[in-house]
């Protein structure tokens, strides 16, 4: 083999060092960073014990938060600073609020053509006697579509966090379950529930169905129905509730409601944006079957809200249907 430089000289060149680094036979850290290899540690039992005791003492000193000066000082300073910060923030907001247009004044910027049209033409344009329902489910239905999906995704997040999937054995689950410590078959509760639950649920249905005619709507009615279901399950237990409401029920219910909302509103958005005449009639204002899609959307929202409330309760209490 013919070389122009000798092996020793070649090994000193940068190209050789780069090559050896690329090939993996040379560690840039070795010989550059750590100057001396550590000698192996030699300890006998005594020093080890001593070491452990020292550590224990140090730990006790360090974690003794009640007498640690720095921690106490930090707590004090922290408290003072957070107080100062809150005072600053509150005063800033108060100054901001003080300069806002006064409440109830006629020429406030808020009293403009937007609210004027909602109030004056809301009834004839949406067919809903309740202007608020007309606003949230017809004028600004896209926001409400997003809002009902907020509820849906909140339920999914709670499912991720709390659903147990029945992995632990059935008996173990019963013990960790707080149902075991609750009074079972409480007569007072059951009697009250038997009287109240039908009325609560019927009232909830009424609030949903008449959301376009008077105060109420899907969100409030759904919450009422959810409360009724929760009362039922606390009185009669999960076995009876699971005869009509299981995880699968919730799944199909929420899917049905959201899909219904999504598809019907897609139709209405599409026709609206493309200036196509919508086939949905507005009906006579004041009748139950009126105001176009609003009744349907109220029902969808109500179903989603009721399912969400009940699922939250079940998840926090039991971790599964």
């Amino acid at each position, binding site marked *: 083999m013919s070389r122009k430089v000798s092996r020793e000289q070649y090994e000193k060149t940068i190209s050789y060092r780069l090559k050896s680094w690329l090939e993996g036979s040379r560690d840039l850290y070795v010989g550059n960073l750590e100057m001396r290899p550590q000698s192996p540690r030699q300890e006998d039992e005594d020093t080890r014990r001593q070491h452990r005791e020292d550590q224990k003492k140090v730990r006790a000193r360090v974690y003794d938060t009640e007498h640690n000066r720095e921690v106490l000082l930090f707590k004090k300073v922290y408290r003072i600073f957070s107080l100062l910060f809150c005072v600053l923030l509150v005063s800033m907001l108060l100054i901001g609020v003080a300069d806002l247009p006064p409440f109830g004044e006629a020429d406030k910027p808020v009293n403009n053509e937007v609210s004027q049209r909602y109030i004056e033409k809301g009834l004839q344009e949406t067919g809903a006697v309740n202007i608020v329902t007309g606003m949230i489910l017809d004028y600004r239905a896209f926001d409400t579509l997003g809002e009902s999906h907020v509820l849906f*995704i909140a339920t*999914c997040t709670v499912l991720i966090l709390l659903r147990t999937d029945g992995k632990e054995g059935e008996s173990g689950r019963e013990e960790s379950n707080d149902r075991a410590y609750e009074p079972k078959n409480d007569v007072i509760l059951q009697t009250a529930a038997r009287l109240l639950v039908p009325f609560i649920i019927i009232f909830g249905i009424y609030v949903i169905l008449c959301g376009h005619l008077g105060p109420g709507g899907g969100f409030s009615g759904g919450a009422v129905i959810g409360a009724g279901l929760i009362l039922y399950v606390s009185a009669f237990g999960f076995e009876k509730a699971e005869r009509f409401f299981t995880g699968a029920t919730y799944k199909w219910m929420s899917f049905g409601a959201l899909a219904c909302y999504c598809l019907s509103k897609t139709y209405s958005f599409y026709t609206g944006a493309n200036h196509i005449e919508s086939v949905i009639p507005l009906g006579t204002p004041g009748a139950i079957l009126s105001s176009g899609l609003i009744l349907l959307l109220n029902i969808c929202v109500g179903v989603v809200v009721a399912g969400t409330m009940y699922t939250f309760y079940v998840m926090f209490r039991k971790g599964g249907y």
Partner: protein
Amino acid sequence: MDFIRNLPFFSIVLSLFSGPLSSILGGKWAKRVNSVVIGLCGAMSVAVLWYVCRTGEAFVYTMGHFPAPWGNEIRAGILEALMAVIFCAIMLLCMLGGAREREVEIEASRQNLYYIMVDLLLCSLLALIYTNDLFTAYVFVEINTISACGLIMIRRNGRTIEAAARYMIMSLLGSGLLLLGLCFLYDLTGHLLMSHIRESVHALVAGGMYQRPLLVAICLMCVGLAIKSALFPFHNWLPDAYGYSTVSSAAILSSLVSKGYIFLLVKIFCRVIGFDVFRGSKVIHVLFVFGIAGMIMGSVDAIREKDIRRMIAYSSVAQIGYIYMGFGLGTMEGVIASIYHVICHAATKSLLFVAASGITDASGGSRYFKDLNGAGRRNTLAGIAFTVGSLSMVGVPMFAGFISKLFFSQAAVGHEIKMLPTLIALAISTVLNAVYFMKTVIRIYSPVKITDLEEKHTERGEPEKGMGKVIRPPEGYKEITIWQQPAKAASMILFILLNILLGLNSEPLIGLIERGLRMFS
């Protein structure tokens, strides 16, 4: 009306609908639906981008039968369509890159829930991009926040649940401040539609009315969105959230979720408040100072880190600092540079997360630097990908990061007072970036430490000299070829190509951003 104008709305509704649809499907089908939906949304956004480039003007789309100030409205211009295309592409690549980890780290019964989160996250991002109404933006910010929490904690261990709780608290604080700001602004202007608010704000500023509440509103919105996108003093939720969640979550969170909020902030600056009013307020100086502080402190924290994923997460803090620094310059060039950096950081950071997962795979799952020796050799592609990502982050020519740094310094040169601090901070930050990224690159190409020496003995019982030492690599070290992880390899190759493309051919993109910003006003 051209049919193509329906596409932004279709992409939002499609991704929205796929969420509930996935809830009744099993994990496998939910995954397929998810990939198809992301692909379709990307394709529709490409069509919209082509359309608005051809017509040269933005269009609005009425959601329903009522025109804008009464009903909802979405708007698509060049910048919106461009962001939608990039977000869809990067989300698809992130999902591809983390597919194998998701199978392992997420329980089978929760797989479909993960895809619900991703579908709705995509929907909220698209809606944030396209919306022309501030309250709609707030509603989708909520969806974005909750789905991001779900993405963090679906890999169920103590760390992620703590991280999700922290993220939830900080993020809700940000949402609350944003909502407060919106309330102030609504009370002052009486509108929620972006273009109408801007007219009213200009009238207020011209008339000198309600200056203080207007300033408070701007502050509240800026601080709210800064908390949500982890600007420097509000960043302590970030390392845990990005560091311990599953790979595709970390990549999506760092490259898309925080960028969605930043894009909303750009919209608020340019379309709601008006760029001149925003420049006139003192808020930009605050953003500038905290941006610079973030550039330096984020890098310092990253240098201290011993865990590769958390190091990459801290590096995000520094990069978010760059973006806010660009806004803080208060010039159009600064905003263009920031938007370019949003895109470049999204492409690079997700590449780094995917590559880091490849590197840790080859090192027995350990994420600590001391175990990573030689990982770039065991998993060649991941090593190359990590090197490319690091070079891009440091700002070496030919890669995306260089271009954004170039634009930042060009934007700074045009400014009288802020030129010097910006250039100094850029220099320091580049050096710090190089310290921690190059340290890692050298580490993954260094030879494996000899941990277990077995000396062969000669017949006489003496240790044999020179040869005979057997190097035993630590547990779990293994070679990973491209064919063992085809999905991840494909995702890394595409990310590398995207980075090099952004670095070598940035002119068309910058042109699009400029035209898009001009369309904003």
